[in-house]
């Protein structure tokens, strides 16, 4: 991908495809190692790469920097390069929500955003909700046992936190609506509903 203008947000953004432009997306799902069509450089777009690019960003209040190839997603930059692993890689193509982070106040699937797009951004992951004082959202999850394996949990927790930040008076139905992009395989939804009710009762 030779641009960072946000094109990646519109198309399927699986890492393998990011090595090409939109044309690669037409190749349909392929196994690792199957050839993707060669990249068609877009002469109008500002060029980054193909070598590593410096990415500086703020993560959970800490200024961090790393150099990654332009094809690297924000998720992989966080996990593989910055050791911020609260965001999980599950589907890697914007369907499960396990990689949800807050970028400049907005929830995004970090697997569908390139790291170079997040340069200068303020990124918050589930880790921001821990520390000395446990945020009420993860606290409610722990109280109500709204987690089993817990692999989906940071994604849900971040989504709820963002929804309640936006509207501290959100009703349980409104919070549920904010979770349509998150999937849990262990089936913790019943307990999650208890947690959401507890949170809404306390006003976020």
């Amino acid at each position, binding site marked *: 991908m030779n641009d960072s203008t946000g094109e990646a947000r519109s198309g399927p953004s699986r890492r393998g495809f990011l090595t090409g432009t939109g044309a690669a997306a037409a190749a349909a799902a392929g196994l690792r190692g199957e050839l993707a069509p060669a990249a068609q450089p877009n002469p109008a777009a500002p060029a980054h790469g193909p070598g590593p690019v410096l990415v500086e960003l703020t993560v959970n209040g800490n200024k961090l920097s790393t150099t990654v190839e332009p094809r690297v997603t924000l998720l992989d930059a966080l996990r593989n390069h910055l050791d911020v692993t609260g965001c999980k890689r599950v589907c890697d193509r914007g369907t499960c929500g396990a990689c949800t982070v807050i970028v400049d106040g907005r929830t995004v699937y970090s697997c569908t955003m390139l790291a170079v797009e997040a340069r200068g951004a303020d990124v918050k992951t589930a880790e921001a909700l821990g520390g000395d004082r*446990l945020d009420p959202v993860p606290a409610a999850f722990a109280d109500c046992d709204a987690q089993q394996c817990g692999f989906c949990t940071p994604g849900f927790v971040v989504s709820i936190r963002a929804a309640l930040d936006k509207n501290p008076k959100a009703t349980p139905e409104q919070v549920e609506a904010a979770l349509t992009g998150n999937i849990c395989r262990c089936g913790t939804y019943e307990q999650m509903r208890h947690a959401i009710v507890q949170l809404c009762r306390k006003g976020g």
Partner: protein
Amino acid sequence: MAEGWPKKRRLLGTKVKRLDGPDKATGRAKYSYDVNRPGMLHGVMLRCPHAHAKIKSIDTAAARKTPGFKALVLVLPAKDWIVVKAGGDALELRSVPNKKKKEKEEQRTVKVTPGVTILRKNKVVAVADLKPDDVVQVEVPDDAVGRELFFAGDEVAAVAADTEEHAEDALRAIKVEYEVLDHLVVEEEVIKNPKKKTTPGALEGNYDTTIKDATKGDVEAGFKEAEATVEGTYGVPVISHQCLETHGLVAEWDADGGLTVWASTQATVATAAALAGRFGLPPAKVKCVTHYMGGGFGSKFGPDVQGFAAADLARRAGAPVKIMLDREEEIIAAGNRPSATGTVKIGGKKDGTITAFAVDCYGSPGYTGGATINLNLMPYVYGDAVANMARSHKVVYTNAGVARAMRAPGHPQNCVLTEFAVDDLAAKLGIDPLVIRRKNLPPNNPKADKVSWAGRRHDIYTEQLDLAVKLSGWNEKWHPPGKGKPGAVRHGIGMALHTWGGFASGSTTPNECSVFISKDGTPTAETSTQDLGTAQRTVTAIVVAEVLGLMPTDVLVKLGESVYGFSSGSGGSTTCPSQAPAALLAAQAARDDLFKKVAPKVGADPKDLAVEAGKVVDAKNKKEWGWKEFCGRLGMDEAKGRGEWSLAISNEPENANISSGQVGGVQTAEVLVDSETGVVRVTHMVAVQDCGLVVNKLACESQVAGGVIMGLNYALFEENIFDKHTGRQVNPDMEFYKLGGLRDMPKITVHMQDMPERGVIGIGEPPTISTAAAIGNAVFNALGVRVPFLPLSPRRVLDALAKGGK
């Protein structure tokens, strides 16, 4: 004589929050996928893109020159050779024949060209380093030529590079030429072409028709006796485990030739042992760590191809290597729940008696494997009450990934095939299906212990049915099929029963737990077992805290490392019933050791000492000490105890109420079906489940609700769909392979039928079994038309309505 569970319980059976809840919810918990070791490389697997092919040639030269490339392995059987002669570019070798297997010694000469890799003591060496009698492993690329691959996703090679992106670049640079062979991925195509052979094994084709289970009674006479008979064909598809944390591990070799892996596994000990075997290491040299685990559901019991590959890449590169599968690989190559399609004929009388049951079914376990249902458990739950039956099963091999155990293997399939037929029979007889269920419950076994499942299963089911009827409002809500309130959106209610064998322990080798008490009063419990999300960490803490008069948060639990003694894999719902007793015995032994060591220092007799909440008391001499104060007297010493639990120990009569196996359960589903769009919405599920002695009520209820949700996904959404032309799965992802989200979920009422006298029983698998059958029956009740195949997608619902002639 075992002391058993404390008579007065402060913690056991109460609702205790998981100890690791906040860490997991805030991303602090490090799963194997999250482990980043210094200097770690990233590995990826090359897989065959064809459903059936042979490798014609493989060229790795270009891959080895890509930026960041570090190591490459070919997926080939591992074999040790002894060096006979080494010199120049030639290597003469002889094999190490396995005498027990009556193997003959083989000779082999290898021309050491670039691309040939020689390993000695798990290090890459050159010919010049070798001397006669050295034991080596040799990778010759030509050995891969001619290898037959049986599904799109079959492993060919793996590479490691400094970044994941570079690893994928290297992978793309490997040139493989395939001879593409015929494939069969659709089961009906196999049946139509029974002689066509596209899978391994000695069979003439892909269709094995030999599996038949014994018949019982006289099935023809049974059907004659029946007042009504129905025949239907029902089926469930292949589905995927879809563990959110994919399979894989991080492998790191140390300077002494030892290997540590951080694996996403349900079996730390077995995984370490398998790696030790593969790399010729003494078991103590391999450590498997699984501190947190993102779901397994039966699919993660060993290193798998990619785990061996990661360790192999790491030994070649001299650096840690991580391989975690991506979502597509997870679905196509890391196990699945096999399908079952069956034609069922069932006959019965108006009083509900099933007079005869016949099932002829088939299913596909992938390209190899066996039967896909538990034929000897058919008709499911009611088998012991039905006098006449005939059963057969056929195996259909397809060019697809191989099935693995998935949460109650075989049972959900059994349940659907049986329970759909039961409700269809009830409809034909014009009776409430509840009548058939009550009439055909398995009888109590008069010879079995009255406390055990076998001794009282009829009574347990009867009580469960009563509870389910009450909690679901069955008597008010049930109507004859299709005879609910008219309108586009129809209401229905359905029911299904399940059973689960389970054991008190997963192995004959005893499961171990150790407890240490230090002078600051902190107990540490160590066990190699793993917490799959079942809250096992918290279970251990609760048990130790109960015995020592503390709170679960006071206990330090170290689990998920194979070096902490033996534990069996977490399968068959055996972890809690083997680990809770081991922790109980360990904590009791540690407490006794503490009394023995401290009593002389406080002028007491160990026999007079007992633990109460937060203190140690000597009731006889009316003395007491705070827990910390008492432990402080240990000085430089520590108190310790070890506990072991196995099936044999559990089966000793005196231990009957410490742990056991076998449960049943009843579930009801209430649905709304839109007869115009075909959309099914489940509005209420009731799950009644017997569960022995509950350790943690909160986590136990979570398990049951989670099982119900997994069953709901099975009923409505999940299916591995293959394209018969390309031989590839079209939905190896999470957008076209659907799993329900929060707003798809009904209200779930869980009722735990506590029976502490039966000891601890595992609960992971049973509650997922009957959900799909109950939902399917509810849809039948709503429409008056059977939707015979899962998932109950809008299209299937509309098709069934169209055929139903309404």
